[in-house]
């Protein structure tokens, strides 16, 4: 029922496509079945959606009219799919379980999820490739055209360097500022100390003199 090949060329507009599918449904009458399918899908999506709705603008409730023709989709999938027993080397695909739901609005968590997916997938793939005894790693002396040109990479490097420099400069300024602040305190302390020392010395001299005088008297006795 999915093969309305006549409509593929001029069935361009959405309405036309929709009309066609309606006709198909009513004529062959798997309508009841489809509706049941659609319902449970909607409820699935509904659950998942209610959680992450918070930051999204204008995320309305799902429209009930949405078409979901599962059988036709699966049929199409069978049509285009590669043979079942195709060698993994052709596909190079790895599935990765994300675990619990990822929060979309948390950039860091999201990117981390993607990164772990990539890392995990690559590890699995490399293990597979190693066990197949295939040459898959680039040798050190293999030079070839890269996706980004050297000029572009140079730009990136320049940017990284300037960023680093900026950070260093900022740190230096910060250090200098703190040092200046502290230097005042230090100077004040030093002054105090010096005054104290002077006083002590004078005191000690006075004391010594007194002692000497007393000592003289003692000696003179």
């Amino acid at each position, binding site marked *: 029922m*999915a*093969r*309305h*090949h006549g*409509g*593929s*060329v001029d*069935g*361009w507009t*959405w309405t036309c*496509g929709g009309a*066609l*599918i309606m006709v198909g449904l009513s004529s062959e009458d798997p309508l009841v079945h489809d509706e049941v399918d659609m319902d449970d899908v909607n409820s699935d*999506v509904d659950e998942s*959606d209610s959680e*992450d709705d918070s930051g*999204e603008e204008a*995320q*309305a409730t799902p429209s009930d009219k*949405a*078409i*979901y*023709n599962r059988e*036709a*989709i*699966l049929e*199409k*999938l069978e049509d*285009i799919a*590669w043979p079942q027993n*195709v060698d993994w080397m*052709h*596909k*190079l*695909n*790895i*599935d990765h*379980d*994300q675990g619990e739901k*990822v929060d979309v609005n948390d950039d860091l968590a*999201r990117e981390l999820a*993607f990164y772990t*997916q*990539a*890392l995990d*997938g*690559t590890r699995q793939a490399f293990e597979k490739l*190693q066990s197949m005894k295939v*040459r*898959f*790693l*680039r*040798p050190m002396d*293999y030079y*070839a055209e*890269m*996706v980004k040109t050297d000029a*572009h990479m140079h730009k990136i490097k320049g*940017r*990284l360097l300037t960023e680093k420099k900026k950070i260093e400069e900022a740190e230096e300024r910060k250090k200098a500022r703190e040092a200046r602040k502290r230097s005042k305190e230090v100077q004040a302390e030093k002054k105090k100390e010096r005054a104290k020392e002077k006083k002590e010395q004078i005191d000690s001299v006075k004391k010594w003199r007194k002692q000497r005088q007393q000592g003289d008297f003692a000696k003179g006795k």
Partner: protein
Amino acid sequence: MAKKRKHTEASAQEVAAEKPDDSAPTRPERTLFGFKKPAAPAPDAEPPSAVASPRAPPFRNKEKVLVTCSRRITFRYRHLMQDMVSLLPHAKKDSKVESKQSKGAALNELVELRSCSSCLFFECRKQKDLYLWMVKSPGGPSVKFLVNAVHSMEELKLTGNHLKGSRPLLTFSTNFDEQPHWKLVKEMLTQVFATPKDHRKAKPFHDHVFVFSIVDGHVWFRNYQISVPHNEIDKVDKGGLDKMTLIEVGPRFCLNPIKIFAGSFGGPTLYENPYYISPNQIRALEKRKKAGKYAKKVKAKVRRKMHEMENTLEPDEFADMWKGED
């Protein structure tokens, strides 16, 4: 007269009957040394068909992807398209296509003309919204996406780099297998983004990985460079897998599926995203909100006035208390 026509028809039929006879004897297969002689019947008297059937032709991926865009596409989206071309060695570029009128037919023709088996068509509308058509060419299906959160490879924040034309590893999150339409999308993504094995422009090493992940009902795409310590080319160093790091290369984008059609660039709809709201509607909604602000103000003013009219203050009894003092 009628007789004559009959006669001519009959002769035409004869010709038609003769024609297939003419082409029927197939030419023997050619080899380097001339025509191959039909193989002598095997001494075991085994029928040749029985020999041929177990050795079915090995699967060969001959995918070719046509990558093109509509006219008046903005530079950012154009760069994204160019990134896709550089990531897919089995892609063919084509000039921009006028986005109005019978675009489906024209594009189908174009894909066929370039002998491609699938197509990525970037359609830009209003210089703002980017739609991506991912199409399997002759018999469909086609998926229409809205593209969000676009970052091209040009951006300087993404510091990775990898060989041009090395075959990517594809990683999919497992929630692609939960629903039929995601399954279909996964199969199409695999076919479009996996570089065919032994493609003439492909390089024999694997140094980058694609991520396709469904979060919040959207497909997110990332591309990472793999950097792993190794001395040999068929083995990672001991413990190298743990030391492996990934560096993002770009581009980044996020695909929001809108519809799946059975044909290529059209045909009956198989799936419709119930959560999809077109960016036009979103903008209209925002505008309406802004418009509502002024209306609210006016309304509040009127209400206040009404309120004041309804409950007028009674004249103050102390109003002229101090009047006589001056």
